[in-house]
């Protein structure tokens, strides 16, 4: 009886331990011959993460590239092409756990053409292991891998100085490489960097301390992985809640579903909905398991708000104290991932949090040579290039800088024709104030003297041109609402409305692609007739008739509904 009870207790405490373990995601980088797959295979094997039957199927496999009894790299190289060529061609995810912690490994290939894979693996990692071959020392690849780890904001980097068996476990070799690596890490601004002497094939200092490196007093690789504090790449303490969808099962419930990507939310907290800027507070935090008093970073919840505000997917609920930047122009670091090079000025889709907008790279400031870290000039970007670029979007993004928040500082670019993911981007600085039209001309280069077309203007503005005739009293509010939605607006006043002047100004602004607003009552009858007849091919919305009978909110919403159609107009013409 007592034994049975003891067993139940022991098992419950085991379960408790399993259920409360934390999670460390790490990535590994190394070149083809650094023995990276072997190292991971060894880690999985020695940490008892390899299931016996998988081991058995490796033992009977026809290919064995290692001289030892078991080729550990076969445990991780999953695809046929990889097994045949003996290289790792894509990111593979591996899972293992120890009594202390649970791990997810993003195993990424290290050769030059696959920079994009390492960036992919690094994007979700809290820690990076970089393989260094003790017989070769720090190579250009080491610099590249460390740079990508720092670029993607990984807070902890471990250099595993591998193949120590081939340098007779020489302390001097390790010290020299360790110094070199620390220097590199400092140069890259990596928060925490350590070096561990290992031999993946022999198992030295992977799980158990090696007797062959008595001079080394630091942790083994696994000890380090088990004990290093799990640090998020970066975090601001303020609420960021990108809305994924609106949950409205019936008329009594309207909640906003999403994941808290930064900060914390409590019932009663004041919040601001962006981009509208409207303020309200949190009525309840709803989950399947019951309502919560508060919820923190990483949790997927549904928020009910105190006021009925128009909020939809792509909007963000944020802390009023520290709000993200709202801007459609900014500087970002791009990792180009497509075989098709970047076309400056071409329209791509940007996916940022839950928001998708059109985006263009307006200029390349410099490309980074990933081996030397030197800045080079570039007019375009090829696969695996990394560069600092100017970006402009059709609608403002709600962002923090990447160094402050991985979630709200990152986005991807998608080619709208092939649908391929072509770039990963990290926002480097907000550029809304320093941007002037003149600088855009400069950054786009004087390489082309061809005239700017209406289609190009459409792409720049994200909408086609139009004229709105409104009651004079509604003009300011209408312009503000249009402007907030990203429209390029201009109001015609005074002299420019006079007959004789009007069409000169109108044609000019219309061809520039603007949304033009004018007070209907200020236009004389002749001008209005000409607008209807002579310029029937132009887009003119007259929302002034019957305006007396509707509220100003209703009027503004009519303006917005009409204006939104301008985002589609040229689409159709282009046959997209």
């Amino acid at each position, binding site marked *: 009886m007592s034994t049975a009870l003891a067993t139940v207790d022991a098992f419950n405490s085991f379960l408790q331990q399993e259920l409360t373990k*934390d999670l460390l995601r790490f990535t590994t980088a190394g070149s083809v011959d650094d023995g990276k797959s072997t190292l991971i295979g060894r880690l999985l094997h020695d940490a008892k993460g390899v299931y016996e*039957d998988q081991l058995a199927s490796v033992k009977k496999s026809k290919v064995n590239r290692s001289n030892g009894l078991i080729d550990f790299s076969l445990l991780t190289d999953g695809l*046929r092409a990889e097994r045949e060529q003996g290289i790792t061609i894509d990111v593979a995810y591996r899972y293992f756990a120890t009594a202390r912690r649970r791990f997810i490994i993003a195993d990424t290939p290290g050769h030059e053409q696959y920079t994009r894979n390492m960036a992919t693996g690094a994007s979700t990692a809290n820690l990076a292991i970089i393989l260094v071959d003790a017989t070769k020392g720090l190579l250009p690849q080491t610099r590249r891998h460390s740079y990508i780890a720092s670029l993607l904001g990984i807070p902890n980097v471990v250099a595993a100085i591998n193949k120590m068996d081939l340098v007779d476990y020489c302390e001097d070799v390790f010290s020299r490489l360790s110094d070199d690596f620390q220097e590199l890490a400092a140069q890259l601004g990596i928060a925490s960097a350590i070096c561990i002497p290992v031999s993946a094939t022999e198992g030295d200092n992977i799980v158990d301390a090696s007797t062959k490196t008595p001079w080394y007093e630091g942790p083994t690789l696994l000890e380090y992985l088990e004990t290093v504090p799990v640090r998020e790449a970066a975090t601001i303490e303020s609420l960021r809640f990108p809305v994924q*969808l609106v949950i409205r099962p019936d008329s009594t419930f309207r909640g906003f579903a999403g994941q808290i990507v930064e900060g914390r939310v409590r019932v009663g907290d004041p919040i601001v909905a962006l981009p509208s800027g409207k303020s309200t507070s949190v009525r309840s935090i709803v989950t399947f398991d019951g309502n919560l008093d508060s919820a923190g970073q990483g949790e997927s919840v549904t928020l009910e708000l105190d006021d009925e505000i128009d909020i939809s997917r792509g909007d963000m609920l944020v802390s009023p104290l520290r709000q993200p930047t709202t801007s459609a122009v900014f500087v970002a670091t791009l990792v180009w991932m497509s075989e098709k090079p970047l076309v400056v000025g071409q329209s791509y889709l940007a996916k940022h949090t*839950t928001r998708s907008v059109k985006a263009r790279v307006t200029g390349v400031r410099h490309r980074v040579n990933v081996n030397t870290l030197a800045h080079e000039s570039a007019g375009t970007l090829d696969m695996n290039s990394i560069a600092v670029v100017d970006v402009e979007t059709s609608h403002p993004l709600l962002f923090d800088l990447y160094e402050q928040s991985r979630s709200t500082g990152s*986005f*991807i670019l998608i080619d709208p024709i092939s649908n391929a993911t072509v770039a990963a981007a990290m926002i480097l600085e907000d550029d809304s104030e320093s941007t002037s039209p003149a600088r855009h001309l400069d950054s786009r280069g004087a390489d082309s003297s061809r005239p700017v077309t209406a289609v190009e203007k459409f792409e720049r503005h994200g909408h086609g041109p139009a004229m709105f005739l409104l009651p004079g009293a509604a003009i300011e509010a209408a312009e503000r609402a249009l402007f907030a939605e990203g429209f390029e607006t201009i109001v015609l006043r005074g002299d420019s409305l006079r007959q004789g002047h009007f069409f000169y100004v109108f044609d000019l602004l219309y061809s520039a692609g603007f949304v033009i607003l004018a007070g209907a009552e200020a236009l004389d009858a002749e001008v209005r007739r000409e607008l209807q007849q002579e310029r029937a091919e132009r887009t003119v919305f007259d929302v002034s008739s019957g305006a007396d009978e509707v509220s100003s909110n209703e009027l503004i919403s009519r303006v917005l509904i009409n204006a939104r159609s301008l985002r589609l107009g040229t689409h159709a013409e282009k046959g997209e």
Partner: protein
Amino acid sequence: MSHITTAEVENRDGADAGLLASAVYAGRLSHLRKLEAESIYIVREAVAEFSHPVMMYSIGKDSSVMLRLAQKAFHPGKIPFPLLHIDTSYKFPEMIAFRDAYAKEVGAQLIVHRNEEALQAGANPFALGTQKCCGLLKTKSLLDALADGGFNAALGGARRDEEKSRAKERIYSFRDAHGQWDPKNQRPELWNLFNSRIDKSESIRVFPLSNWTELDVWLYILAENIPIVPLYYAKEREVVLRNGSLVVIHDRSELQFGEEPRLVKCRMRSLGCVPCTGAIRSEADTLPKIIEEMISFRRSERENRAIDHDEEGSMEMKKREGYF
């Protein structure tokens, strides 16, 4: 929580649910809570971004977890997509009974699809080999069902730790107009930004459980009190030993020449078709015992499913053709 099914009444023992719940929901996010939140995010993204999503429901433990995550993702709303079961007709009868009862309990719409043409032509793994049989009854049937329903996103319960080629698959796995996977031409997937752009007749397979391990799934089932098919629990069943696997015999007509069934206490580690899914000898008749067993003998759950063993890389080949 919800109703307790027969399976649970029979099989749950003294594991203290309160203790487990408090452990899971302790202030700091445990790995299990992180995985749960990530999966809910993925399920919601799929619903927000695709016009016609569907959830693959295979009746197994992973499907049960996925279904619970879907309930959580849209609470207090209903699950906003149908469940799709590809029925090969060779499934265990316990699975079908469980499926019908549970879908009803959850209140989800259930679509069952069979490749009737192939079945009428007599498709079975003995005559065709597992590769061809799966191709007709699972892959072809799945592709037909997706096309029939006009589904452009199919949520599946596959985990990357199951098998080597799965380890390289994206959370949003792009499939061409023929449902095929091209492992060398996958979209890079960074942060949690999924590319949902597809052209007409292309589709995305969405894998919310990508980062879960088998142990995570069991721990979650225990902590969340999720009903599962009774076949997972050990009990005495009639079996024969066939090609090194224990095959459960439901009817003497399934016996091959010279076979004599024996009563063995055994259970299933994963659920598939009767002819291709082996049982393991086991005493684990409760969830905690199953978890204990998992940890004490580490043998990958797919070991007893013949389909992965036909040929080195067989799962990769199936997936290239459109298999989940």
